[in-house]
């Protein structure tokens, strides 16, 4: 059977190669699709830390994804209209600089994850799933009804934000940027997985009593992981908003949470490259099945059901035949 590390390398090369080939052939839309996959995979990598390593089944990660998106939307819209976000007690101006936006998106989603996590992690199991779902919906309804930033209409940013040295409106350049971020974050999450913290997180998933007995507090470990996970989703949200040049409450809806979770599970929960593989399969299915039938979501549903029932290790699990990291 294929070794997982070899498979990962192959996947990585494929994701670099296809858009480059498409660029050569002038297939611009293929690059856009690949960029979308990268961005959604990034959110999946974030969720995978909570879900795969930490065993926290969160149905509320769309909240962090959306908050990242809105961080971008709000900063960029103020920069476009030259109206400061606030003047008292101190002046905050909007910005069109991606790095600055990313930092703020990460901070804002991290704060939200801290608040939601601190409450939700007091519970576990099914309670946790439902509570994260409910908090996500709370933020969703708030975003729809709060008129300041477009409500349900969302916010349009007519031009992509700036990144030093790049023309982000050129699809292949923006793809390269997203791919670089994804690669960096996957690398970071691999370091995290094997670090002291990663060991504590995985041990906590496997046996909470053991964690307590060695003198560590599971709640704190989970909360830190939840915040890191939320921050990555926030970054993904900001980049995704830039890809679409648009943010809206849809980013916050529980269907988005479900989809991010599907990416992770389709690929194989807890595996490093699962989100990338899962997102790629999902987006391609959406792309091709949509042309076959108006009722294509039935087939998507059936396929998902098959994966859950018969291939619990996801696609990477099928290919490597290593037993699921999570059971």
């Amino acid at each position, binding site marked *: 059977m294929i070794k997982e590390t070899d498979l990962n390398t192959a996947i990585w090369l494929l994701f670099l190669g296809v858009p480059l080939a498409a660029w050569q052939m002038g297939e611009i839309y293929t690059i856009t699709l690949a960029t979308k996959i990268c961005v959604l995979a990034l959110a999946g990598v974030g969720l995978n830390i909570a879900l795969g390593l930490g065993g926290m089944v969160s149905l509320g990660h769309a909240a962090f994804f959306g908050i990242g998106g809105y961080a971008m939307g709000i900063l960029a819209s103020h920069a476009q209209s030259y109206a400061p976000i606030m003047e008292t007690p101190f002046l905050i101006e909007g910005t069109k600089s991606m790095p600055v936006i990313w930092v703020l998106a990460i901070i804002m989603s991290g704060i939200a994850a801290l608040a939601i996590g601190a409450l939700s992690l007091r519970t576990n199991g099914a309670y946790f799933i439902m509570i994260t779902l409910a908090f996500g919906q709370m933020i969703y309804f708030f975003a729809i009804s709060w008129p300041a930033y477009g409500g349900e209409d969302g916010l349009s940013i007519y031009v992509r934000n700036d990144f030093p040295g790049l023309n982000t409106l050129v699809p292949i350049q923006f793809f390269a940027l997203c791919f670089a971020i994804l690669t960096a974050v996957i690398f970071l999450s691999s*370091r*995290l997985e*094997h*670090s*002291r*913290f*990663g*060991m*504590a997180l*995985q*041990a906590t998933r*496997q*046996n909470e*009593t*053991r*964690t*307590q*007995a*060695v*003198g*560590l*507090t599971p709640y704190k*470990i989970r909360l*830190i992981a939840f915040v890191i996970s939320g921050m990555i989703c926030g970054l993904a949200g900001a980049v995704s908003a830039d890809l679409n040049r648009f943010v809206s409450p849809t980013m916050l809806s529980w269907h988005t949470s479900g989809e991010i979770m599907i990416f992770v599970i389709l690929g194989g929960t807890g595996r490093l490259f699962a989100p990338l593989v899962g997102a790629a399969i999902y987006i391609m299915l959406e792309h091709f099945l949509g042309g076959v039938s108006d009722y294509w979501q039935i087939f998507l549903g059936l396929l998902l059901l098959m994966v859950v029932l018969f291939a619990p290790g996801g696609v990477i699990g099928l290919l490597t035949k290593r037993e699921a*990291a999570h059971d």
Partner: protein
Amino acid sequence: MTDILDVRAISKSFGALKASDNISLSLKSGEIHALIGPNGAGKSTLINQIAGGLKPDSGSVHFAGQDITSLAAPARARLGLGRTFQISQLAPEMTVLQNTVFGALGSDGRVSRFWHPVMKDKPLLEIARSALERVGLAHRSGERVSEISHGERRQLEVAVALTQKPKAFLMDEPMAGLGHGGSERLTGFLRDLKQEAPILLVEHDMDAVFALADRISVLVYGRIIASGTPTDIRSNPLVREAYLGDEGET
């Protein structure tokens, strides 16, 4: 000899059931103090209150000169209360070595390190390897916990507890399911270990208890009915009475 662990008059009720009824208990350095009693006597409840899983309704628990009654389990572990469980509590997907390293990591406490691989951390590895050597499990380092035998898991639990360099051990039926040879080996090991840190031992294996214990306390219906040396306990009429119906089982 000083008291490392001092349980002072704790009580705990679940509804009408008095699981712990005004229990006082101490553990001095260098000793093995065995806690015995028939099933349902309230041993698990008592252990849980000492380890931090349950809070007593009244009374207090002191450890290494500090009142730990309101501390949670992890904080008690950090103070040096090492623990093994009645049913093995290990991370099943991690290897034997990883579980031991995790123990060392816990007592080291510096968990918020996100970058360096923990399995290349020399000090932690050293602590872990020497603990595995001591329990005789070094040759199984690379196995996943889900693959090793029941007896090996019991050894591993002791090894993990060792990495924490505890001031006292709390051992809940370490002999259970070990078989005759295994029990004997562990008996010898614990006899040496008590010099390092005293052991509060809950055990059903009466041979081991009477061979090992310096003191024995007998718990029946949530009360300590007798406490003393093995010889005292053997001849105590109350103990004989309490155990009469249960002899076969113990």
